[in-house]
């Protein structure tokens, strides 16, 4: 019988062969598509002929909805996370004729993702950014693509990510116009938040809950609106009794419908923001169970943990003070901190009331349908002992750990 090592080697050989086959197939498809490809279009035309992919979009201008639709070709958008929401977002922007798209994702296409939109079974095994670029380029060759197949939260990648956000615009060296967070975890959202606070980069956050029946989008203008670290994560209350929600045995559910709705809401607001029509939502929730869309605005928190957020707030204050007061400032709901706490109860349902009282902080006053994932108590004195002062060097500690 073959040993484990031999079998592993054989698997690797077969994987390599498969990759080669896939590449060959892609090359053949590309050659074939070349004939089907339309040539690049230099100027968007409003002429209604069956060969013009932009006629219906340009009609927005004729109807007076959008003042200057062609302007879309001058914008660059970075999409971080090319999964269920990000891939659909990228497709919509591509079809709308965006100037340039930067795509970031470290993941591969998997057959387990086929309940979602966009990717196809034959792309399984390819990196998501590579597969997406291939499909999107076929859909609209006028868009410029830049892809990065890595995890933005690690040290070296994060530096590169910041560099591309600040220099990856359509005109190389210029920053991108908007960053879209379509990631599925807290670390990556916080990494995007950190980068955008440092760079003063406007971005939109999006998310779908782990139970797949709610989602949200949020516009973050550093220094002006609440950043992702200004408050505990906001969640859309799905009105499901937490006690009946079974979490055993699964991590997360996902529905193509919810992800499609959230991607649609996100890109709608991207278009409104970039092309300056309608009103851009600051925070828009989607409760799929009741078809309820709560919305709100939240100012940046002066006590935010992120010092770059606090610095951006100072800058914003200065700019506001210098600006002549003419226009009507949209009224934002002040977030009031209440002394009584009705949130966080589900989160720590297994602890006693006394412990809950001690562990939970005050919850902000939020509109109906929006809540916080958890609360954080006001700074308390550190309980329990802390690490002692040590004379040992890091190397000595590392060696000690190895010897244990």
């Amino acid at each position, binding site marked *: 019988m073959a040993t484990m090592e031999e079998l592993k080697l054989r698997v690797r050989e077969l994987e390599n062969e498969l990759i080669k086959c896939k590449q060959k197939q892609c090359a053949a498809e590309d050659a074939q598509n070349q004939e089907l490809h339309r040539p690049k279009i230099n100027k968007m035309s409003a002429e209604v002929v069956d060969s013009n992919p932009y006629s219906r979009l340009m009609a927005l201008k004729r109807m007076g909805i959008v003042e200057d639709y062609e302007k879309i070709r001058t914008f660059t958008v970075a999409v971080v996370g090319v999964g269920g929401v990000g891939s659909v977002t990228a497709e919509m922007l591509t079809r709308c004729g965006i100037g340039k798209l930067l795509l970031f994702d470290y993941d591969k296409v998997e057959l387990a993702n086929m309940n979602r939109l966009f990717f196809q079974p034959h792309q399984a095994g390819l990196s998501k950014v590579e597969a997406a670029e291939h499909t999107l380029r076929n859909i609209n060759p006028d868009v410029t693509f830049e892809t990065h197949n890595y995890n933005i939260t*690690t040290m070296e990648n994060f530096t590169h990510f910041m560099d591309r956000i600040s220099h990856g615009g359509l005109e190389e060296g210029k920053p991108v116009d908007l960053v879209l967070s379509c990631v599925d975890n807290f670390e990556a959202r*916080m990494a995007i938040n950190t980068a955008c606070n440092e760079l003063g980069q406007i971005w939109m956050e999006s998310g779908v809950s782990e139970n797949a029946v709610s989602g949200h989008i949020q516009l973050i203008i550093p220094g002006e609106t609440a950043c992702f670290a200004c408050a505990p994560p906001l969640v859309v209350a799905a009105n499901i009794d937490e006690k009946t929600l079974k979490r055993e045995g699964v*991590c997360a559910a996902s529905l193509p419908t919810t992800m499609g709705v959230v991607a649609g809401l996100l890109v709608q607001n991207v278009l409104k923001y970039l092309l300056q029509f309608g009103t851009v939502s600051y925070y828009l929730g989607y409760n799929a169970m009741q078809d309820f869309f709560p919305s709100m605005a939240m100012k940046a928190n002066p006590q935010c943990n992120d010092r770059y957020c606090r610095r951006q707030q100072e800058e914003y204050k200065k700019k506001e003070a210098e600006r002549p007061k003419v226009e009507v400032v949209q009224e934002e709901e002040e977030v009031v901190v209440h002394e009584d706490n009705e949130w966080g109860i589900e989160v*720590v349902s297994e602890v006693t009331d006394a412990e809950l009282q001690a562990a939970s902080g005050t919850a902000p006053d939020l509109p109906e349908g929006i809540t916080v994932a958890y609360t954080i108590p006001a700074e308390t004195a550190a309980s329990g002992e802390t690490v002692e002062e040590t004379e040992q060097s890091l190397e000595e500690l590392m060696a000690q750990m190895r010897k*244990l």
Partner: protein
Amino acid sequence: MADDATRRAVSQIPLLKTHAGPRDRSLWPLRLKEEYQALIKFVEQNKEADNDWFRLESNADGTRWTGTCWFIHDLLRYEFRLEFDVPVTYPDTAPEVAVPELDGKTAKMYRGGKICLTEHFAPLWARNAPRFGLAHLMALGLGPWLAVEVPDLISKGLVVHKEGQRETAE
């Protein structure tokens, strides 16, 4: 929250003092020393309690960690490799611990073998940042996960005891 045994173990891990992540060139070495101090203390306590269950070590700059963890079930020892990167947002956000060899065997995992923590973990971490360190991550994240998942994987035959691994804990 966690069970009593976990709570007791966690309460004995020293808290950390330095609020610094890997991007903070001047303070990160200090934080890293505290991480090692807390980890050493935790492993020693585990040994004393006859419940030694993991080892960890990092690269020189402390951004990538690898190690092993093991679980004793019916006197047999099941050992797994574990790994994680320290994200740029640490210690405000916890690293995602991965047990790659169990990838695809349990639904309580994200791709790449990253373990799926309970809904209690994120609020607990957020409330205790930056005083919680990697030792707390092991005690509150990986430990309870192994305790639930490994027996289940064994009963389903998805994890089998490997010949040559020690029959019982030393």
